[in-house]
């Protein structure tokens, strides 16, 4: 089997370059943790209240959780990309476990390569970051440690990442391959891409969300009864945490319904008649729902969490006035840095992996007379649609989040620094990033195909 995995990986290596972006990002995160922790342990400073080992563990934990969540999308995309091949494997007698092993094995090997490369990129990062940490007020108690490359931390990074990605990949792939075989009545996709169970789950999550949401508009006693807490501030923090958790679950559960609806809504906003290529772009986006979902969901969720942390730290906890700004940035980057890096890399990976499928129409479009400029316009509009969808959805999410936060601030007599404008900040950042990534990858891909084709034509 190992030989077969290697052969399959060698044949499809180009597709894995896309996935490598995310694996390297994960390698950087894990590398920072491992270099930090092992360097500390090897000089016997891993103890006490200011233990750098515990400090360095945080990015790895948050990073790996994020990685686990986004790997579902990547695995699906990589399977779809080579589905005719895997179908043939299945016809020749590979069972779902063997197919999952085939995918997971390839993912694990690329994960190890990503871990190896990421490890070396991590060294300058961990050096600069730690030097900054120990010179920042509030964190000066951390001991000074010389961060160095060691065989043990390199091996650990490579092995842990390989195993983690491999196992997650096998589990995800197993799910994909067994889904294809059976037709369950309850899990069969029905209207709006949701199964009966999917609908039930959706209704349940939305119900819980609505309930908690409405509680914010009533007196604090019922919230206190539900969420406990010694003080009003604590009650509201816990209620808000539950709220954001439910919002994330709602986005996850209802995405297949929300996203196509949003895309259709955009036709009303865009000057469709003015731009002749809009229709093509629009159908291209709608056609690739898998990509839309795997790109949009993590970014919207990230934007929501980032906004939530900002509100909690700057407004509700009101630390901005009490503590040093640098310290806040330090804390934020410790918790959000790793997920942010991995989610960004995920967007790039997904865009690269699916680029060839999303642009298969390029050759036909070119034949029926689209010029390179038309193609670029088409791709730009597609990228705009993706960016706008992320922006709109994240903004709506933030707006929904902001109301209870205002309520909480009111009830706990806290002064809000942020105005309503703040709900646009993170959505604008994430939306712009999606737009740019997709535009750059797709345009370079279109350009490559276009110039190749031109070359072929002139040769003949």
């Amino acid at each position: 089997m190992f030989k077969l995995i290697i052969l399959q990986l060698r044949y499809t290596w180009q597709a894995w370059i896309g996935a490598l972006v995310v694996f390297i990002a994960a390698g950087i995160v894990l590398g920072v943790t491992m270099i930090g922790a092992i360097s500390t342990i090897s000089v016997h400073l891993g103890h006490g209240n200011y233990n750098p080992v515990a400090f360095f563990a945080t990015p790895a934990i948050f990073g790996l959780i994020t990685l686990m969540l986004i790997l579902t999308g990547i695995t699906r995309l990589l399977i779809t990309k080579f589905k005719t091949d895997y179908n043939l494997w299945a016809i020749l007698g590979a069972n779902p476990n063997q197919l999952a092993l085939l995918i997971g094995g390839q993912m694990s090997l690329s994960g190890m390569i990503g871990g190896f490369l990421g490890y070396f990129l991590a060294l300058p990062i961990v050096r600069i970051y730690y030097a900054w940490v120990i010179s920042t007020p509030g964190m000066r108690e951390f001991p000074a440690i010389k961060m160095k490359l060691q065989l043990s931390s390199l091996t650990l990074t490579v092995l842990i990442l390989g195993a983690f990605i491999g196992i997650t990949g096998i589990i995800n792939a197993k799910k994909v391959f067994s889904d294809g075989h059976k037709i369950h009545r309850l899990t069969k996709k029905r209207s709006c891409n949701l199964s009966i169970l999917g609908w039930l789950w959706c209704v349940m999550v939305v119900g819980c969300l609505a309930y908690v949401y409405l509680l914010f508009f009533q007196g604090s006693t019922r919230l206190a009864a539900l969420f406990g807490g010694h003080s009003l501030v604590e009650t509201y923090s816990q209620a808000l945490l539950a709220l954001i958790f439910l919002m994330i679950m709602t986005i996850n559960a209802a995405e297949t319904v929300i996203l196509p609806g949003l895309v259709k809504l955009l036709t009303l906003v865009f000057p469709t008649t003015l731009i002749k290529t809009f229709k093509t772009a629009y159908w291209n986006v709608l056609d690739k729902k898998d990509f839309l979902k795997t790109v949009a969901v993590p970014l919207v969720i990230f934007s929501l969490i980032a906004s939530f942390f900002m509100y909690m730290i700057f407004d509700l906890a009101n630390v901005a006035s009490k503590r040093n700004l640098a310290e806040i940035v330090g804390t934020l980057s410790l918790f959000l840095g790793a997920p942010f890096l991995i989610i960004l890399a995920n967007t790039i990976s997904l865009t690269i992996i699916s680029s060839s499928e999303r642009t298969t129409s390029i050759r036909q479009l070119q034949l029926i007379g689209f010029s390179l400029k038309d193609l670029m316009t088409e791709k730009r509009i597609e990228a705009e649609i993706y960016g706008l969808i992320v922006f709109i959805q994240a903004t709506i999410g933030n707006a929904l989040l902001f109301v209870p936060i205002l309520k909480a601030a009111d009830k706990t007599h806290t002064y809000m620094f942020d105005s309503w404008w703040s709900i646009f900040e993170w959505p604008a950042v994430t939306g712009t990033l999606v737009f740019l990534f997709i535009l750059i990858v797709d345009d370079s891909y279109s350009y490559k195909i276009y110039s190749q084709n031109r070359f072929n034509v002139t040769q003949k």
Partner: protein
Amino acid sequence: MTEKVIAVQELSKDFSLGKHKSIHILKNISFSAASNDFISIVGPSGSGKSTLLKCLSGLLRPTNGSISIDDMDPYQLSPSQTAKMRRTTLGFIFQSYNLVPALPVFENIVLPLRLAGKQVNRASVEQLLKKLNFTADMDSFVTTLSGGEQQKVAIARVLVTHAKIIFADEPTGAVDANSKKIIFDCLRTLADNGACVIMVTHDIELAAMTDRSLVLRDGQLIKRLTNPTASEILAEIERG
């Protein structure tokens, strides 16, 4: 002694086009086949031959009707049972896209054995390929092979697994006269040694050398010929 290995009853297959439209590709097909049988399926292009073969072999669920292969309904098996049946009992040779592009010739041939965790004997595969008049290197990648060579690799794969039932969709479509004879003789030998071979073909000469011919037109099984002759088959196909 022969045993019945395939039984098809009132099989039909529709493809849906859009929400409320569907087209009937196969209509009410029934027949059975036994070991030692060499059956050819003939008919005009688009009459549903490939579709029938896919339904028979467990790759495409029919809309109606029942199929049993080796006393089992292939559409009722669990995924791992399906996999086991495919690598031990069934052999596939398709019209195109027979081979896993990632693997070299040798690995393609022994893939079902590897998946079953069986012993692989390189020398015997080498001998087999020589018998098939296959001259390219065993370690070359299959994408570099000609259509006929690819077809031979697919045949070799069926040969090493000792499949009981072999489904072949135009196995001689892309090969020269000499290779055509070699491939056909191979299938003939397999049938004589106890396998059940079902072959779709456009080649009337070849169909005339099989034990039985099923003539398909517009998705209907219009004629079953036993020990057919070329002129009989031609007459059936051309009769409008």
